[in-house]
């Protein structure tokens, strides 16, 4: 217990949040992160893709409240994609752990302590939030959305044997070195990227643990799931089936 306390003081967590037009949500998110992470050393790295709605102005106001060393604005000129947003944020991360989460409040910061605790208890390289176990859940999906999600999940589990229950979730805690290693070999876009990250990490033999999270679909605006997303998903699945796994990856490690 005492050792744990020591670790807690030594560890630093960099929370990377990509944004695009999230001026209201990012302010609420920052407040909630500070509310729920009290005795932990952390920084929030906002990677804003040139939002026209003034997201960056809000970040500057938040920096006045919480301090410029706690909230870092690392903007990019325009929309450049999710995967590269994490790479970009990672370059500026000073913590030994990195948390990635969405800005739209579908990921609630109140789960951050359970991610950290799980990592300290198990020594895992990755702790991933899962919506599909007891204690987790989803709010705001219609039947069609649930059906697609379940179908996609069964298909992925039958074909890929990933060893984690929620492949496309994006609320995760990584050891920084592990994230750097995994992210460098990922090529997918969108939410297939999340699946590729966790499948690659699992095949590389990293220790992955899960914690239940709830997912409240974004209050403003609708999250889309059309035919093209399904095609992208199937393409991603086929791509991952054809990838080399563990042994080859480690032996060819630069």
């Amino acid at each position, binding site marked *: 217990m005492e050792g744990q306390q020591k670790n807690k003081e030594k560890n630093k967590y960099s929370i990377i949040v990509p944004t695009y037009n999230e001026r209201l949500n990012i302010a609420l998110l920052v407040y909630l992160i500070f509310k729920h992470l009290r005795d932990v050393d952390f920084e929030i790295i906002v990677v804003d893709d040139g939002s026209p709605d003034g997201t960056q102005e*809000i970040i500057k106001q938040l920096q006045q409240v919480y301090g410029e060393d706690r909230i870092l604005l690392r903007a990019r000129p325009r929309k450049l994609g999710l995967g590269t947003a994490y790479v970009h944020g990672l370059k500026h991360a000073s913590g030994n752990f990195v948390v990635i989460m969405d800005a739209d*409040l579908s990921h*609630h910061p109140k789960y951050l302590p359970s991610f950290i605790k799980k990592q300290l208890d198990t020594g895992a390289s990755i702790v991933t939030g899962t919506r599909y176990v007891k204690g987790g859940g*989803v709010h705001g999906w219609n039947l069609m959305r649930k059906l697609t999600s379940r179908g996609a999940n069964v298909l992925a589990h039958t074909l890929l044997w990933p060893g984690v229950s929620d492949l496309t979730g994006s609320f995760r805690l990584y050891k920084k070195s592990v994230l750097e290693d995994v992210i460098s070999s990922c090529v997918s876009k969108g939410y297939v990227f999340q699946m590729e990250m966790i499948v690659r990490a699992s095949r590389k033999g990293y220790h992955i643990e899960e914690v239940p999270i*709830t997912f409240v679909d974004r209050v403003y605006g609708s999250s889309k799931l059309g035919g093209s997303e399904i095609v992208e998903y199937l393409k991603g699945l086929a791509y991952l*089936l054809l990838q080399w796994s563990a042994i080859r990856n480690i032996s060819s490690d630069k």
Partner: protein
Amino acid sequence: MKHIIKIITLLVAISAFWIGLLQASVIPSSHTWLLPIYFIVSLGCYGLLMVGVGLMRFPTCPQEALLLQQDIVEAKDFLKQKGVDVGGSD
């Protein structure tokens, strides 16, 4: 090893077992010939069953949406006090 090769290996092993059965004719070969169809049908049933069970037990959390609304109100109050511009948009 490519993951697809693992799956193909598994399928080859199953086929080998099936051909073995055909050769050995432990059970009448007319039954053995139908086994691959049974295999595919049961795979399909497994898939449908898993999707069905998953749908029935799909965890939902309506109370979380309410809690989130409370958190949003609380956060807005605090941020307004601190002079962060949280009104207007959305």
